[in-house]
């Protein structure tokens, strides 16, 4: 087995990683499980020595709005943009940080100062040098002001100082461990100050023809058809990238995407590649690989929300009845074709540093469900119906609509008649998150690498934000839960904080504002000719600089 050239990069990391671990926030991210070790091996493994050259055709859906993920954070935008831009750091397969634009970093003992030492050999694609001024501008003017999550995650960031061109000092009003889950290039990108300063970043024309520091240079965007990137010959990570050219194609129909892959017209589909039903078939194919690793960062968690503003959902027995009536294993097996596993709470089991299985569970039992409903006074009428409600499934794909059909039939068995309301995305956002006009609702949210970004927004009363997608839709406002969440935000001690996160999981199952259903498994599909696929936790969104053709 030949070591890829980037192995040396890992070695050089030792020092900076130690200094990182000294910091308060850094050690939040340590879940090195066996599964990741396997990933590491796979990466260096069977592919052999990377070969340079060739054009990779990748498939996107839908077409992104812009190509700068620091500004447009939709999944397809990130999937393209991460090859054009870098972040200060990256994740490795073990969820540990590794350098990117920052060579190393230190955190002050009280956690309020983070110092990044930047690479001095990086230039923007237009030839201008990359400096700490770009970092300052990007964090303060772009991430804090125009990133949809940025001003929440970086709420405590008060200043970015630039003592020299290659040092950036971030000052926080108080320790913010959570920012370590957001410095990577798929979340917080560093943009060229010289092209953005003095403009409104949202409308800057460079969003459509981006200039980054990344492995690939933007070449052409033919709307509705293709986005073309070319190899950056001056990339700082010497030897990379391997591909000469990447062409992203837009294909809206899932069956047509599968066909493009099977005919060899496309080699890589990073997101939502083919219908779930096709996965088993594609896995059996010699020419196509299906990779489920690389989505531990987004960590999609699927759940069933009650609208607590409406009766009878104020009654915990009714909510428990629903939890008993939904067969999560069957849901995972039929609707999600086995690409999911039952969740025990709001935190995915693979985030081992946070996860606890030791919380109340609701086994599948129609008898218990009916008994609870009877006890709550919801008895069956002469037509066998005890309750009529509506349900809005997530608008992000057909799988979730099919899950809605599953809930409808499952709940019918305990005398609950469900009317499904399928909406397009804007209607869904408006009805569920602005008007709160629903009885029940099912969706997945990203749990993200830190529950403070992903999980708390489902349970915190402050996350009831009218008009904001993926916020607290159930309307849960529980003082006990709020207290724990607020302690998580300020606790500097990692172990104490993790204990609080475990307590949050317990409370989530006790108060049950929503039924935690499944840990979803997202996947990528690609041609067997492809090697060097990044298996890091954000791998599905990450730069294609490690990828090469012709295995």
């Amino acid at each position: 087995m030949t070591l890829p050239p980037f192995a040396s990069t890992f070695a050089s990391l030792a020092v900076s990683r130690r200094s990182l671990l000294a910091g308060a926030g850094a050690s939040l991210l340590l879940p090195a499980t066996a599964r990741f070790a396997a990933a590491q091996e796979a990466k260096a493994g069977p592919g052999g020595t990377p070969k340079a050259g060739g054009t990779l055709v990748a498939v996107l859906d839908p077409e992104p709005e812009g190509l700068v993920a620091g500004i447009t954070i939709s999944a397809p935008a990130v999937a393209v943009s991460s090859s054009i831009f870098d972040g200060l750091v990256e994740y490795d397969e073990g969820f540990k940080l590794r350098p990117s634009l920052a060579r190393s970093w230190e955190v002050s003992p009280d956690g309020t100062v983070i110092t990044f030492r930047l690479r001095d050999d990086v230039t923007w694609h237009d030839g201008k040098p990359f400096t700490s001024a770009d970092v300052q501008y990007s964090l303060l003017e772009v991430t804090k002001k125009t990133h949809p999550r940025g001003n929440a995650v970086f709420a405590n960031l008060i200043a970015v100082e630039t003592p020299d061109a290659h040092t950036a000092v971030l000052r926080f009003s108080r320790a913010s461990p959570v920012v370590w889950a957001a410095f990577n290039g798929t979340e917080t990108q560093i943009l060229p100050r010289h092209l953005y300063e003095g403009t409104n970043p949202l409308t800057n024309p460079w969003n459509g023809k981006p200039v980054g520091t990344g492995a690939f240079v933007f070449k052409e965007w033919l709307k509705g058809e293709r986005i073309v990137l070319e190899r950056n010959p001056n990339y700082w990570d010497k030897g990379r990238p391997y591909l000469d050219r990447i062409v992203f194609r837009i294909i809206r129909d899932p069956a047509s995407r599968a066909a493009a892959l099977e005919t060899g017209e496309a080699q890589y589909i990073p997101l939502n590649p083919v219908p779930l039903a096709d996965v088993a078939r594609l896995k059996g194919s010699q020419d196509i690989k299906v990779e489920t690793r690389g989505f531990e960062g987004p960590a999609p968690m699927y759940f069933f929300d009650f609208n607590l503003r409406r009766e009878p959902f104020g009654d915990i027995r009714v909510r428990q009845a629903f939890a008993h009536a939904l067969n999560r294993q069957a849901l995972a097996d039929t609707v999600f074709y086995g690409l999911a596993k039952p969740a025990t709470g709001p935190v995915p089991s693979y985030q081992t540093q946070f996860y606890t299985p030791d919380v109340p569970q609701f086994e599948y039992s129609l008898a218990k469900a009916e008994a609870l409903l009877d006890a709550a006074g919801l008895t069956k009428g002469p037509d066998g119906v005890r309750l009529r409600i509506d349900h809005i499934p997530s608008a992000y794909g057909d799988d979730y609509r099919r899950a809605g059909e599953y809930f409808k039939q499952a709940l019918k068995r305990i005398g609950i008649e469900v009317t499904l309301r399928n909406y397009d995305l804007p209607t869904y956002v408006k009805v569920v998150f602005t008007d709160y006009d629903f009885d029940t609702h099912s969706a997945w949210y990203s749990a993200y690498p830190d529950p403070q970004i992903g999980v708390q927004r489902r349970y915190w009363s402050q996350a009831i934000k009218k008009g904001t997608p993926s916020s607290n839709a159930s309307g849960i406002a529980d003082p006990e839960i709020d207290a724990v969440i607020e302690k998580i935000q300020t606790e500097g001690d990692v172990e104490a904080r993790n204990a609080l996160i475990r307590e949050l999981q317990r409370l989530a199952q006790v108060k049950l504002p929503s039924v935690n259903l499944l840990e979803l498994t997202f996947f990528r599909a690609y041609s067997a000719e492809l090697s060097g696929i990044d298996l890091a936790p954000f791998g599905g969104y990450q730069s294609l600089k490690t990828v090469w053709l012709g295995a």
Partner: protein
Amino acid sequence: MARFGITLPEGRVLRYLGLRVVQVVPTILAIVVLNFFFLRLAPGDLAEVIAGEAGSATPEYMAMLRQQFGLDEPLLIQFVKYMTQLFQLNLGYSFRNSMPVLDLILSRAPNTALLMLSSLTLAVLLGILFGAVSAQWQGRWPDGVLSAFSTVGFATPLFWVGLMLIVLFSVELRWLPAGGMRDLQRDYQGLAAVADIARHMVLPVFSLAFFYIAIYTRLTRSAMLEVQELDYVRTARAKGIAPLPIAVRHVLRNALLPLVTMTGLQLGTLLSGSVVIETVFAWPGMGRLAFDAVFQRDLNLLLGVLFFSSFLVIVSNLVTDLVYALLDPRIDIR
């Protein structure tokens, strides 16, 4: 559409055109005004789409987006602004696509035109052939087979035909590409590029034509049957002219008139594209552009597409009327 009782051609073409334009302007205006307000009834807006695609957003971010898109202004002001732009022939800006609407439309329209015109041409040619054969052997087996074929074509869901053609010819036989308009791995130039696009067109063009053939087959068939009974055809037959020359020279030529009308009527709507075929074959055309604009609440774009396609419908109706009159001077444009 209403036609005016003006006899052509006797120098009255201009007057006719003038009258039509006077009638057409209010129609187009009505379409724009109606849709401007109608489309705003849709729940949710572009800010919600963008926040939804991002998976999360803060309320401040949403407010900033709305301000950027001009959605925070009172509806009437938005309307006045839009109409002012429109009178300067400016279709506005598509915020979802970060591009002027007109540029977007002009970049897609040729693709749609290519696809639709090819399908229509193929359908007209095959339809005429099938229709002529059917009429010639009326009631016998070729008629039966072709009628059955066109009935099935007309009754089969288009996406089903498209997807099955992909499975057969792309995935199983690997003869033709499954979608898209170009081979993006190889950068073909010149003639090779033309051949490449032609290869990508085969399946979508046939899927669409399969549907249209029915219309033209039946049209030709019934028109030919009708013309066959006319006096001058009978005279020709009585003169002892062979059946095939009669069919081609007399019958078919006259039967073409209704085909012109039909084709003209369809031409206008062609550029709004086929949403379904463009979806199945990932064809970068106007149909999909309009469809996506609906779900992304990209109202400027949708209004632009509606405006553009209405304009084309009207123009092509006009041209059809004129061509018709020129082809057959006996006809009154009514």
